[in-house]
């Protein structure tokens, strides 16, 4: 990566801008999007920065065409990204299913805002957590990462590109207006220290008839366009060669199961969690900016002599149920903290409730990060 791509140094930077710089550092070559609050700063920065490094940003007529153009460009071998907020994800949903179905690496950034519908655009809410997993129709798996700070907007954007390339799949960054608009210190490391993954592709000159470019649980080489691979890419049910099969039900079973297993089989490699708990703790499970409150509350509780720990799930999808189970076996009690009415709570409860009690603490106001005092009160309540 060139120095123009990776602007190493220490900055006081907005989360959204750090995300755009992360994309550049990861090797993003093409991005497309449509203006939307609170994600616009990412698009603005990409529009300025991508042409400087030989790439391009296109402002499209809507979010549907934004993701479509991004998927199209990915099939030419480019590293690609689109950025939006909840309403844009709703529009993109059908195409996200396409990207999953034909195994297209791409990064989708959702800077979540007050929702449902038009909602309250400048307020951060974690309202689209389950949409990321189930937004498009059908059974499928997705990867989603949840940053808690501008630094992680940079770091996780790079991780998202690497996962997208490695697993040939769309990867979500599930940020929100708090983290997107937050300004903090961001360190951009030296280019040579940044790991950059590129998808497997068939070797030049491979006989097109012999390419099995789809439906491998260990990720098939991608027969990208323009190399003479004569790829047939269809989101209709297809076999490993990409050939459509709309007759044989067993081909549908393979299509659904292999696409899902491709992610689930590698869950351990994809999972990023940050656990700081001991046996007998009341463990606060959270993600994104709420994890900052959780961490402050746990410190306060420990100072007050209460047994408190934290588990932050940075990889939200595939759901890290093993990590939740591991924690729940040790915990005295689990308190789930989310800036919503309990989107990940049922999943966490399903994994933890077999081993310990699980409660949910919603914020006082949807759109407000939890007050650590309020969390400490809840810890006291469950300890007694």
């Amino acid at each position: 990566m060139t120095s123009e791509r990776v602007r190493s140094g220490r900055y006081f930077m907005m989360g959204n801008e750090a995300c755009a710089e992360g994309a550049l550092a990861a090797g993003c070559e093409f991005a497309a999007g449509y203006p939307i609050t609170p994600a616009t700063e990412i698009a603005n920065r990409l529009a300025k920065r991508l042409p400087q490094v030989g790439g391009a940003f296109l402002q499209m007529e809507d979010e549907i065409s934004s993701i479509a153009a991004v998927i199209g460009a990915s099939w030419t071998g480019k590293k690609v990204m689109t950025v939006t907020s909840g309403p844009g994800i709703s529009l993109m949903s059908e195409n996200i299913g396409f990207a999953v179905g034909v195994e297209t690496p791409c990064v989708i950034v959702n800077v979540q805002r007050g929702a449902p519908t038009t909602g309250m655009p400048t307020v951060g809410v974690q309202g689209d957590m389950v949409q990321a997993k189930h937004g498009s129709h059908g059974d499928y798996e997705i990867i989603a990462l949840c940053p808690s700070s501008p630094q992680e907007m940079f770091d996780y954007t790079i991780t998202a590109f690497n996962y997208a390339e490695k697993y040939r799949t769309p990867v979500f960054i599930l940020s929100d207006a708090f983290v997107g608009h937050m300004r903090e210190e961001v360190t951009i490391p030296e280019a040579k220290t940044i790991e950059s993954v590129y998808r497997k592709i068939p070797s030049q000159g491979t006989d097109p008839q012999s390419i099995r470019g789809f439906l491998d649980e260990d990720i098939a080489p991608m027969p990208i366009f323009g190399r003479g691979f004569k790829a047939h890419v269809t989101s209709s049910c297809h076999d490993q060669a990409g050939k459509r099969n709309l007759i044989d039900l067993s081909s549908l079973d393979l299509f659904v199961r292999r696409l899902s297993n491709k992610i689930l089989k590698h869950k351990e490699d994809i999972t990023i969690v940050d656990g700081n708990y001991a046996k007998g703790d009341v463990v606060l499970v959270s993600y994104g900016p709420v994890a900052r409150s959780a961490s402050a509350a746990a410190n306060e509780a420990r100072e007050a002599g209460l047994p408190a720990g934290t588990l932050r799930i940075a990889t939200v999808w595939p759901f890290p149920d093993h990590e939740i189970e591991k924690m729940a076996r040790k915990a005295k009690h689990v308190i789930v903290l989310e800036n919503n009415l309990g989107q990940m709570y049922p999943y966490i409860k399903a994994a933890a409730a077999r081993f310990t009690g699980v409660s949910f603490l919603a914020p006082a106001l949807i759109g407000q990060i939890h007050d650590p005092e309020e969390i400490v009160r809840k810890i006291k309540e469950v300890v007694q």
Partner: protein
Amino acid sequence: MKEIVHPLRRFVRPSVVSSTNCPGCGNGIVTQSILRAIDELAMDIDDFVFVSGIGCAAWIPSPFFNADVLHSIHGRPLAYALGIKMGLPEKKVMVVSGDGDLVAIGGNHLIHNARRNVDMTVICVNNSIYGMTGGQAGPTTPAGVETTTTPYGSFENPFDISRLVIAAGATFVARWTTIHPREMTRSIKKAIRKKGFSFIEVHSQCPVQFGRKSGMNGSVEMMEDYRKRSVRVEKAAGFKEEQLKNRIVVGELVDIEKPEMVEEINRIRAKAMRRPS
């Protein structure tokens, strides 16, 4: 005896042994016109990336053409094609899809890519109906036709697709019917060579759906009807608006020069690289 192989078979994916088109469908004529154009230009099919959407016409390149083919979702092939053109500007990008795909659900992408003047060739097979789903009315269905979703007759005004695309800024627009295969081939050749957004509307018979709904007896009668109703654009210039009612104005309607978007982006990029900030 030596096996007789169609001279265009080399452009067809070896694994493809049959067609999914209904008997009498116009898709075969359009397919031949496209492949003949490529052949007559002495181009390789690997010089192209084909993109299609959903509907009968979308199955023309997919899986038939032995090249890179992206068979996308309903309405969005032009947006996918734009991304592909951005990544592979040296390739010819051709979109083949139907009127429902490109003009109804995908109408927004059609006008915006025409406006942008992105270098691509779009073949819009206009059969005036939704064929694959069983004969529903579309934005090209003539008023009065009884379809499965307009059982008492269609009550909407149909689009003049070519005029729409011209108004949106396309640099090459031609319209033909399946009774004009040679003219169609000539126009496709021009469209491929054209640096810019080129659009070919082909009126194509769907005897199984539109034919039955409109009371016509099979593809021969439908193509005869095209012959009768077609009027060359040069001749149509002298017609009054009411004389053109129910007629199909055929020919090369527009052929102009405008800056092409991908080249413009290259120019902008050179400026950005000189001026980093």
